[in-house]
């Protein structure tokens, strides 16, 4: 089962390597990982999308929590939450037909074209993993994908619940 873990940790050199190292050392899976300092620069926040059954997840959460730099970890998938990732994708837009079609698909998915070259469009799209997957698949039917990059997901709990020190 896919889970999204949010981790708050000390923004120290080497903190990230401990998290990544732990996952490889203990053969846990990482689907995506994002990291950046928070508004309090002494803290970093990591979002990890991972897969595993309940027992594996319990171990992942405990093992991450055991790292000295980690202040808090929560499994966002346990309750209502919002997740988003950003996709930047460069596709061929050679003629009027394909340009129109790419523009139409982008509008339907509420993406935006953020750069135009002689023969390419670069598109930005934000959404959860399903939406991003669907968008990429739809585009692939219409035109050739030159390059794409995904941020990996970030997530936050709905309502009053917050992950903070």
């Amino acid at each position, binding site marked *: 089962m896919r889970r999204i873990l949010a981790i708050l940790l000390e923004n120290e*050199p080497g903190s990230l390597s401990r998290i990544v*190292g732990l996952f490889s050392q203990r053969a846990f899976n990482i689907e995506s990982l994002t990291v950046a300092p928070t508004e309090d620069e002494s803290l970093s926040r990591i979002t990890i999308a991972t897969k595993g059954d309940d027992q594996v997840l*319990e171990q992942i959460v*405990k093992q991450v*929590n055991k790292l*000295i730099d980690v202040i808090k970890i929560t499994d966002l998938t346990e309750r209502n939450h919002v997740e988003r990732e950003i996709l930047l994708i460069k596709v061929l837009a050679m003629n009027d037909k394909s340009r129109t079609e790419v523009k139409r698909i982008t509008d339907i998915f509420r993406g935006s074209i953020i750069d135009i070259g002689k023969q390419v469009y670069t598109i930005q799209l934000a959404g959860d993993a399903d939406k991003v997957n669907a968008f990429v698949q739809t585009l692939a039917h219409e035109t050739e994908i030159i390059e794409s990059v995904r941020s990996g997901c970030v997530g936050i709990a709905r309502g009053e619940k917050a992950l903070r*020190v």
Partner: protein
Amino acid sequence: MSTPLFTGAEMVVKALSALDVKYIFGYPGGSVLDIYDAIFQQNDFEHILVRHEQAATHMADGYARATGDVGVVLATSGPGATNCITGIATAYMDSIPMVVLAGQVPTSLIGDDAFQETDIVGCSRPIVKHSFNCRSLADIPNVIAKAFYIAKSGRPGPVVVELPKDLLIPDNKGEFHIETNVQMRSYNPTKKGHPKQIRKAVQAIANAKKIVVYSGGGIVLADASELLTQLVEKLNAPCTNTLMGLGGLSGTHKNFIGMLGMHGSLEANKAMANADVILALGARFDDRVTNNVKKFCPNATIVHVDIDPTSISKTINAHIPVVGLIDIVIQQILDELDATNFTIDQTSLDTWWQQIEQWRSVKSVSYQQDDGKIKPQRVIEAMYKITKGEAYVCSDVGQHQMFAAQYYPFAKPRQWINSGGLGTMGFGLPAAMGVKLAFPDSHVICITGDGSIQMNIQELSTCSQYNLPVVIVTLNNRSLGMVRQWQDMIYGGRHSSSYMESIPDFVKLAEAYGHVGIQIDTLDELDSKLAQAFEIKNKLVFVDICVDEKEHVYPMQIKHGSVDEMWIKKGVKA
């Protein structure tokens, strides 16, 4: 008057003094010469110069295991630091408090593949509790204070501190401030067990008809031996210790049913398999205990008390988990037993003990000594008699380790010192040296084999330098005994690379280092010569004992079986 200023190297030394360090173990080299210069100019602690950095880590480790204090190692950058890796891993697996101070090339050269540069923080990352890169002079004292706090608190473990040379040299000086009362927002180990979980645990204990207490290294680390004994006596429960937990309950206590696991006693493993409640205290259901986890004690309610939440339900699901310091939690359990007016269900308990006595009567831990070669078990029994069971026994890894665990009943915790988790050959001698420094007036034995002793034999030289009169007892079977046992049992008797062809004359070797060497070849000279070895107090004695090379360690769990499926002796199943 202006505030005095110190170099980084002086700060390291002042911090170690402030933390009451008595000994540090190490080896000098380019990046740490400033620290060595500062050590030369102080008298608060003694530096022990080893012959190989791996031995420094094991000495610090042995010292820590025997005293409970943090073991401290100092190594230079590059090879000095990487030589520490095995010792760090050994300490990590057995949760031993240790701080390794490692030199590093100057900050400006880090990442350039400079001479003797290794990313030791990166190399050691999977085998440390935590590590620090020191990046400023002012940080040094508090980083070291934090390293000690982390190493010793919660579930103890090794901490590595990397010190770049430019922070240590006389060019840079700063004020010395140290906060020994460490507070960290990201690290607050649990102390007390959750009251609700304690109530559940006590309920399970009270309803048990066939309880067994399974206690591990956590009891030893937390000095909770007396509390464990109180609890066992209050419940009149059978108690088994893990390899790491030996001495937690005295090996001569009437409720002690032996070590459990791969080479545990039949009664211990049978009690586990048939128990309705297993009270696991500071143990971690290691694969050398459980055997096949799928067949492990399916009918038991498992109460698991541990300071480390990751140890709980990692391999075996715990029905009643309790996270907390083991001494505090046992006290909570005792209090709750009192508060609920606990009384023993005598009928059930009597039936349970009768059953256990039946398993005990098999005498699974036994051997036959005939007129031929000396049996290794016989040596351990002789050692036990001569030292009245009061020696510190530091073991290497292999058959001799198991024989010592089985035939030397340890009365007290911290008396049995061995590499249980990592199984590090070469651990025994340096560990014994660390123990001898801490307890110069006690008998300190290194029980070893002809394979293990040669993995750190260079330390005989260190023993000469600091006059460390340990007694080395080598069960010499001219082969790698445990490897050969497996080859006999599992690999069709093909002894691939398990025969030691050019074993040195250990007696002459010991003498070459200025020690005493004693050779024992026959049974009739065993007791007298061994006694003679223990009478020599001011010199290291190396006793080389020729033992039966065909002897196997029994009992032994049958691979992939349940916890109590065992070979009792060659070809005989329980």
